[in-house]
């Protein structure tokens, strides 16, 4: 089993333009037998209204997005060719009856007594397979990016209106980018 560390360990400073609530603590991008795996650690901080809503029983949906891009110098960024994309949605809710936080990911569920435990588990992406080698060309430079954000469109509708345009409800990280050379 050959592991090739392509990505970097990175402790992000807070010197980012946006007032992020989620920081990328570390990213590991490794290939193994032609398949690429992503591991990332997000440091998630909830704003008071979001935490309040969670504790009142409102389910929160977090999305982890990964994209691999072949950048072309002559196009604008958003027109660049997307080689691969990966998106994973996590659902976090609080059961007032059992006083437990519950993290759901697909069919898997996990309960936590404290919010910190739940967020720790939520923020850790472990060896997620994101793409296979066959789609990449040897020797080319690709750009990879990853981020995690709270999906506001899956909030209850009245809350959406309330949250619309409010920075207190904007829980997300910036795109974290690095270069991939297969």
């Amino acid at each position, binding site marked *: 089993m050959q592991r090739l560390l392509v990505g970097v360990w990175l402790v992000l400073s807070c010197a980012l333009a946006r007032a992020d609530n989620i920081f990328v603590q570390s990213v590991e991008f490794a290939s193994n037998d032609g398949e690429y795996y992503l591991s990332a650690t997000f440091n998630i901080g909830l704003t008071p209204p979001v935490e309040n809503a969670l504790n009142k029983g409102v389910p929160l949906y977090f999305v982890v997005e990964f994209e691999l891009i072949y950048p072309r110098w002559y196009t604008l960024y958003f027109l660049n060719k997307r080689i691969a994309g990966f998106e994973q949605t996590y659902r976090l809710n609080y059961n007032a*009856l059992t006083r437990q936080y519950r993290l759901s990911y697909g069919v898997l569920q996990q309960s936590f007594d404290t919010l910190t435990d739940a967020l720790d588990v939520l923020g850790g992406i472990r060896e997620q397979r994101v793409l296979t080698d066959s789609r990449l060309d040897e020797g080319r430079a690709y750009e990879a990016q990853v981020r995690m954000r709270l999906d506001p469109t899956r909030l209850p509708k009245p809350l*959406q209106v309330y949250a619309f345009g409010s920075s207190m409800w904007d829980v997300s990280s910036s795109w974290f980018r690095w270069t991939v050379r297969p």
Partner: protein
Amino acid sequence: MNRALIRVRKWFMDRSMRYVVAVALILGVAMLYLLSVASTDTSQFATHLPLLLGLGVAIVVILMFLIGFQFALMRRRLKARVFGSKLTLRLVFVFSLVSVVPGVLMYGISVQFLAGSIESWFDVRVDSALEGGLNLGRVNLETGLQELEQKADSMAVHLSDETSVSRVAVLNQLREQAAVHEAALLSPEGTIIAFSGLDTEELMPVVTNPSILRQVRLHRSYRAVEEIGYQQLQLRVAVPVSQPSGETEILQLVQPVSQKLARDAAMVQEAYRDYQELSLSRHGLKRLYTLALTLSLGVALLSVLLLAIMFSKRLSAPLGFLAAGTRAVAQGDFSQRQPVHRHDELGVLTESFNTMTRQLSDAQTAAQRHQEALSAAKAYLESVLANLSAGVLSFDEHFRLRATNLSAENILGAKLTPLIGTSMQHWQDNAPKLVSIGAVARTRFADQDEATWEQQIEVETQTGKQVLLLRGSRLLEGDEKGYVIVFDDVTNLLQAQRYAAWGEVARRLAHEIKNPLTPIQLSAERMQRRLSDKLDVADSDVLSRSTQTIVNQVSALKGMVNAFSEYARSPDPDLAPVDLNGLVLDVLDLYEAMKPRLSVELADGLPAISGDSAKLRQVLHNLLQNAEQAVAISSQPQIIVSTSATENGAMLSVRDNGPGFPEQMMTRVFEPYVTSKSRGTGLGLAIVKKIVEENNGTVRISNPEAGGALVEVCLIGAASGTLDEQPLAMNH
């Protein structure tokens, strides 16, 4: 071309404006519908809510822009004082008032109601009831957990006592005694030592979380309510089992919560969650509904305003047309027809306006035709008057001259046109003859009984008397009272009549006188022949002298009678071109004896005149004889014969320094048998005048200031034709 272009552009602008407005309104309505759907339904519209709101704001902005544009247009029309723009503004104002006030009122009420109703959902009692329900469920579950833990504790005591015998059987027995759903005995590492379950299908126990194992190994029991599915709960308790060997084994009990309880608890929880969601988002809801309401109000009101402006324009547009039409009619353009598109009162008004302009146009055409006919008739009348040989004068009731014709001017020898509108005292200087006519007319018209009258008057002229025959009549037609005088110059006619009469008398007289003359002469001669021998010398001398006297007198009488008959005979003249100067010199050759007192002044380059040379010689003879006789008594006799050119011919003048024409005879010198001389037939000047007139000429006499007499004979040139243009001819 340019105007047409502007009209086309305007039409397009109107058209496109209409479409823009229609599109904006449709968009607005669609937006409102979507908004209402989105704010009540949790379908996919919810995700597009921000988009919808943005669209609404955009539509409101577009509508405001359109309204601003329309207001700018209206302002421009107001400034340009376009007719009907004030009415448009007032209509817009009224429409807006009628729509905006209730709209805003409804809006206010709705917002208030909305806020009130949303707030009314949230109640402290509901809040605490839900909280209580939730707590009830929690307590219930907690109680179950405590019971399960007590059972687990007692089971753990039993299990720790038991050492060697089959632990599965013990566990099974204990589980049945405690009536627990599932029991498992685990090693500290988590491997299953013994397992007992009520449900035979579930052979394997639920896998235990390593963190729980860790917790229990530290002799802290674990208990929790776990969600295992939709509305399904189970209680899990794990307690340490101390073994004599010092090892700590773990007993895990799992007991499902009764389904009814689980369902009720879940329902309470869901209700609690929903309530909390609403409570959290009530500001958002209020904001959403208020925003939607405001947008709806904005779209509705602005649309109404826009429609109000457009309808007002449409309503007041016919007024503008009518105003333009009225202005055009005022300026005399009756061709204005406005299209009628509507069936209301304004349409009827426009229709009536069109009818009016059509009638006006017809009336104008008729009046024009009438005017033309009138002026044609007038022109005809004027041409008749102008070509009338008789002079026509018309006066108003105060005897001011009103109208005249060309013949009147010719007969009176004066320009009458400047005198029109003046009364009698102004006529003396320019037209003295008119004064005499006026005086006669005045006296005759004074007699009220006479409608028409006729009178012959004589007026003095330089060339003699002019006889005018006046015929007067009153004008009684209509309001225009006045008098008309038609007059003819009958001088020539009278003279001709007189001449004819004299000619006849002369001819008869000559004939009657001539007949006895020859017997008288013959008788006298025979008497002398027979008696001269028989008488003595003295008597014979007497007889001879007497006979001679008789014969002489008879021959003189014969000459006189011949002259009479000559005058009366008047053969037609034989007109031919004549050289006046040559004729004068020929005649003067015969007057050698007069040479010392005769001077001749002949002009060069005279045109040949038209005349009968033999008769013209007679004229010159007569004039020279008259002059000779006139100067006989003078101490220094002088006769001047001269010729000169005139406008259309030549003039022959004979002047002497005799006594001149007697003043009292001036007007009648050309009549036969009028003479100032003791001897003479009085036919000389009469014959001169007769011959000259036969030759289309004129003769004029005068006594110059220097003394003597002057006779001027004007003869027309052979080239020129008629007598009409001769200025002097008018006086005769």
